[in-house]
């Protein structure tokens, strides 16, 4: 397709400009995160006040609740946590950070975005089909997901879910190939592997994981689709009897639901690292930048990024300790899961050492990076607990797990995204001939503190309801019969607190939207390098508002990122691109 022949207006929408594609991805993620957050609020409100009627909908039925859970999880994981850090900021910033002027495959890049948008549309459309959206959670365990009669939403809704994720998997694989090739082939002169910013190492490792994990997921989705419509039985055991219907006639084989769990979690766990790795890299760079310090143990940080990626594909079985996995296998997966605590700890140690006695500048981006560190610690430390099969036997599928992965994956990853947004906003808003804009620091700080308090108030108490035994995916805590009713009712006071906290957390995000609108309308004009950064995306010739003749400038790199020098006059920064040994830019 020759895009230059399209009329001007369509050319703009179907652009192959990697920066605009990056913004398109971020807008898609912003729409998704808004929908996902509203769905989670509906869930929280229903959990503690099940009799509330939702306007334009009516009461929330148990199947509605499970549809909310499923769509919330799917949308947040795929369309927010995978899309925004990897595809959004990856497209916007990655080429410039390695001194490239474009991504390796511009048309494939555009295709990847439009496939992602299509996947989101397919997912959302499942709300409106007979039976509604799928209700089996984002993990879609068969035979529940393999047999259309297993529940409402497991018919056409489930097919649309499978189609959506399959399209998303293809889009992500294309995007990941693009990222890898760009990093390997398009680095500028002097940009050796050891001089690549850690953010780029994050994108690189996440792209490697994407290619490995999404291809397995795609295969699994196809097998499940065959089980549903082609009479195969990869995941349906012989003699399975769902809703009074025996499936022996339509599915003559003898399959294993555990096969799906293996394939799914072989994808599902690396997926978690795909979401967090870019944030890990960015945090390292921002802490160093605002502290005017070198990243402590730079080589170790590169190594730990790769090690986290590598171990990340070896520990999927920790999701299956009580799933029917061989107990000896559980022990092996326990050890591989525990092992990942070490590179993760090395990262935390590097961050603590980098900011130790550094008196950093507390910009909003820096605050969100520090928040990332805090949430990564609190969320991450419960990982080793869940990695022990004997403890998982009690905690599995309780709210303890929900607390763990929301703190580390949802909250830490989102803090990384906020840090990225506040930090790179001048580059996002600048274009040819127009300087970028800085988001309001005052509103930003308020946004940070309310979000931090809200995040902890929402997700810390979930550890406690989990310890009390509250299971996940329960549509209601009130009105449950038997001794179980007692157990669930005991968690209600805490759950009410969590719901109020969640409402507070969601409401405080309005500050972010206010900041966005305020900045776009009348934000402060940003200087060319507002944070006195050392990495190439702030290079005068790579800046989005550089004059056209800047495209002729040769880009070269002379040192690692985040190099600083103390002199009698103060701190001096040494940008990666500068030929001078010392660039005379003083901090404010």
């Amino acid at each position, binding site marked *: 397709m020759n895009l230059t022949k399209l009329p001007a207006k369509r050319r703009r929408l179907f652009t192959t400009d990697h920066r605009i594609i990056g913004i398109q991805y971020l807008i898609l993620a912003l729409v998704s995160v808004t929908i996902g957050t509203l769905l989670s609020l509906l869930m929280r409100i229903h959990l503690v006040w099940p009799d509330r009627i939702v306007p334009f909908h009516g009461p929330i*039925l*148990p*199947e509605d609740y*499970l549809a909310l859970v499923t769509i919330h999880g799917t949308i947040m994981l795929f369309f927010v946590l995978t899309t925004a850090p990897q595809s959004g900021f990856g497209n916007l910033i990655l080429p410039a950070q390695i001194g490239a002027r474009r991504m390796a495959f511009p048309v494939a890049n555009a295709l990847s975005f439009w496939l992602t948008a299509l996947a989101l549309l397919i997912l959302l459309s499942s709300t409106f089909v007979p039976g509604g959206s799928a*209700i089996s959670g984002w993990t879609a*365990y*068969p*035979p*529940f997901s393999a047999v259309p009669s*297993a*529940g409402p939403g497991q018919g056409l809704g489930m097919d649309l879910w499978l189609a959506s994720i399959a399209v998303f998997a293809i889009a992500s694989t294309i995007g990941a190939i693009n990222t890898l090739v760009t990093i390997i082939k398009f680095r500028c002169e002097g940009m050796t592997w050891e001089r690549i910013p850690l953010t780029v190492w994050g994108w690189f490792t996440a792209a490697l994981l994407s290619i490995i994990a999404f291809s397995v997921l795609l295969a699994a989705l196809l097998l499940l689709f065959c089980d549903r419509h082609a009479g195969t039985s990869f995941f349906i*055991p012989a*003699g*399975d*009897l769902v809703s009074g219907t025996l499936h*022996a006639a339509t599915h003559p084989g*003898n399959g294993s*639901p*555990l096969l799906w769990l293996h394939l799914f979690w072989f994808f599902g766990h690396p997926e978690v690292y795909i979401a967090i790795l870019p944030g890990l890299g960015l945090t390292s760079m921002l802490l160093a930048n605002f502290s005017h310090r070198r990243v*402590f143990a730079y080589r170790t940080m590169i190594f730990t990024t790769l090690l986290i990626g590598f171990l990340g594909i070896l520990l999927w079985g920790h999701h299956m300790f*009580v*799933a*029917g996995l061989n*107990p*000896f296998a559980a*022990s092996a997966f*326990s*050890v591989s899961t*525990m092992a990942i*605590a*070490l590179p993760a700890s090395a990262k*935390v*140690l590097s961050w603590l*050492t980098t*900011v*130790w*006695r*550094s*008196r950093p500048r507390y910009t909003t981006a820096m605050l969100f990076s520090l928040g990332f560190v805090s949430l990564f*610690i609190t969320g991450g*430390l*419960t990982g080793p*607990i869940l990695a*022990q*099969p*004997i*403890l998982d*036997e*009690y905690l599995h599928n309780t709210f303890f797990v929900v607390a763990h992965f929301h703190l580390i994956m949802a909250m830490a990853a989102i803090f990384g995204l906020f840090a990225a947004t506040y930090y790179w906003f001048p580059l996002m808003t600048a274009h040819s001939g127009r300087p970028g804009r800085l988001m309001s620091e005052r509103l930003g700080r308020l946004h940070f503190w309310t979000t931090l308090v809200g995040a902890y108030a929402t997700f810390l108490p979930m550890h*406690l309801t989990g*310890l*009390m035994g509250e*299971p996940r*995916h329960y549509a209601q805590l009130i009105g*449950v019969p*038997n001794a*179980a009713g007692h*157990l669930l009712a005991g968690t209600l*006071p805490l759950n009410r*607190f969590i719901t109020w906290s969640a409402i507070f957390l969601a409401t405080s995000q309005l500050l972010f939207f206010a900041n966005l609108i305020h900045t776009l309308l009348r934000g402060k004009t940003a200087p060319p390098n507002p944070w006195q950064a050392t990495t190439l995306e702030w290079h005068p010739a790579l800046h989005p508002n550089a004059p056209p003749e800047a495209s002729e400038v040769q880009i070269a790199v002379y040192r690692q990122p985040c190099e600083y020098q103390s002199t009698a006059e103060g701190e001096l920064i040494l940008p990666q691109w500068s030929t001078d040994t010392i660039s005379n830019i003083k901090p404010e």
Partner: protein
Amino acid sequence: MTSASIQSGLHALSLATWRLPFDASAHGPALDHHLLLNLWIILGLAALAHLILLIGLAARRRPESKSWRIEYLPLAALAILFAFLTLRAERLWADSRYTGPEPTALQVQVVGQQFAWYFRYPGTDYTFGVTKPELVDAPSGNPLGIDPADGHGADDIVTSELVLPANRQIDLRINSLDVIHGFSVPVMRLKQNAVPGMTIHIHFTPKVPGTYAILCTQVCGLGHYRMNANLRVLPPDQFAAWLAAKEKAVQP
């Protein structure tokens, strides 16, 4: 939002009111002890890390320090700590899952089905009868599809509550008729998925008589949240009487 709900929320947050559920099993206390040890350790580590972060941010600026000690010693300490926790956990896991049940253990079958738990006792012949999915017919009193052609099934007892004797090892064989369910008994610190096409054994010893909750912890459909049953642990003599009465009721 009423101030009363805030108050009850804050009250529930205070450490005095939260606790693990009551522990009624033989293996539970060791598990609880290990869990609490873990919780205290990570609470300590989280507090320590935050303390270092805050002190580091508050202290006067100093030139950066570089030393292999800062890089590797804390990591080595953490490696030893995590290895210690892993090994401790592995021993407990091996105790409960690496070995089979004692020969004298009471055999009970647990079957999950959207949205109920069924329990089957082998009856006076100590042998479970053959079941066939095509014979499943809950309305006519055969929810598990016990084959009348197989003599062993005639004396099998099927209940909707799990009744067990205290202080005797129980060997559960868990499976499911339709989709994956999660068999969970919080007071017994037990959890095991019920997977169709598989029969999974777990064994444990209930200690304290009482009535406890059995939940489903794997999302299995719209009735998932109300798929539960009662576990009634009885003193051995009362259990014997209960079993005898049940056996008498199914005498052909």
